[in-house]
């Protein structure tokens, strides 16, 4: 759907939507701490809690982009701190391959970002989110998978 705005007005109105997959033990608790310690961060993230960063299937990341998220953030425990011992190590291998593939097909690496945030790093979480939002804002809306006319018609019916 095309939003018609006057030239120059668009940047003001458009706010990126970031899909964040946070691990239940570290990053989600870290995000909680950010809130309870009254640190503010951009409200552009939609947080989804997952049991572990190892739970994040590359499909989730692609599906989020396909469904119109402007950026994706995946965050888990620091290496060595995983609640399940090795979930984040395994995740790291998958993401390393995925990140390179995304780069190869021409998806800007800034759209899909990864971070380690522990439960005590409320400040770092705010910083990571601000960073991602600023970078995605600079990139502009995700129009990679914009619906074709045919799909649009099917959806409207």
């Amino acid at each position, binding site marked *: 759907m095309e939003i018609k705005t006057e030239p120059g007005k668009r940047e003001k109105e458009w706010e990126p939507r970031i899909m964040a997959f946070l691990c239940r033990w570290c990053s989600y608790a870290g995000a909680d701490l950010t809130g309870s310690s009254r640190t503010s961060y951009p409200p552009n993230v939609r947080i989804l809690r997952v049991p572990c960063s190892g739970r994040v299937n590359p499909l989730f990341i692609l599906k989020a982009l*396909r469904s119109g998220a402007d950026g994706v953030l995946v965050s888990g425990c620091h290496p060595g701190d995983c609640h399940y011992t090795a979930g984040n190590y395994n995740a790291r291998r998958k993401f390393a*391959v995925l*990140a*390179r593939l995304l780069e190869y*097909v021409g*998806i800007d690496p800034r759209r899909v970002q990864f971070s380690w945030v522990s439960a005590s790093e409320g400040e770092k979480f705010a910083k990571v989110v601000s960073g991602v939002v600023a970078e995605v804002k600079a990139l502009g809306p995700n129009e*990679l998978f914009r*619906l074709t006319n045919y799909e649009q018609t099917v959806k409207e019916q």
Partner: protein
Amino acid sequence: MAEARAEVRKEDLVNLVQDLFSEGRVDYFLGYQPGTVKFKTTPLIIKKGEDIQKLAVDDYGHYNLTFYLKEIKGRVGILVKGCDSRSLLSLLREGQIKREDLYIVGLPCPGQIDPKKIAAALSCEPEDLEQIFRRGREMIAKVGGQEKTVSLTQALLEKCLACRYPKPLVFDTLLSGEYTAPISPMKRPEDDLRPKPAAEKWAFWSAQFERCIRCYACRNICPACFCPRCLVEENMPQWISPLPSKGDNFLFHLMRLMHVTGTCVSCGECERVCPMEIPLMKLNEKMNDDLKELFAFMAGVDLEKALPFRTYHQEDPDDFIK
């Protein structure tokens, strides 16, 4: 002379397969038979010792026969080229097949001939080629009664140009024949897409995947795709719509790649069967190069080494993580 050698190899193979069936060592044998079109060789599945005489050994056996092992249960004899033997090893490593159920006949491979490429090099139609044979390290093609010379680079399948394993890595019996690497030095043509800027890459792959009709031929022929229920057929939830569209095609192709990571041996079957001629091997080669760079892993050469996604090291690269 090449023909004479092929005859000897065919005779050896027929005798061997006959012995295998009469001794009751296999229930099926997977090999090649001459196709209905010139310069095409198609798969042959032999049951209960029928059709053994139809077996053919030539340089047009492009098929990677290991993908039948997903379907055929029982003791199977199989003919493998060097590259196919890597598929076999990776399936053994994944635990998809059992070594004791297999009787492997190795075929030393001097490189598989691609008549389409020869026709393109001689600027004629593939149907115009009357005869193709080797002479030393060159290929001779007869067109309109005239002998024309093409180089091996112009005549062999792309994947054969970078072949490192012309001799099968695993076998019970090895047929006679040369197994020197077809081209020396073995070199894959550079992928000129890799250094290009993101926008150009996106434009390239968008144009490619917009054409995909989602026939799933690439998935069905792939020896490394062995999920009993494929992701694209999941409907609770439906991750990927069956309607071919650029976005869903991207999801399908990237997820297919992620699923075959560590099992894909760049056998090139997906690209060969693609009716829309999408250069899928560019993606597979990129992924396999990444695995080599990131984790020093190469699929289908080692039965001991852990699969890349089943293991980890503390010092794995993580410079992309904040």
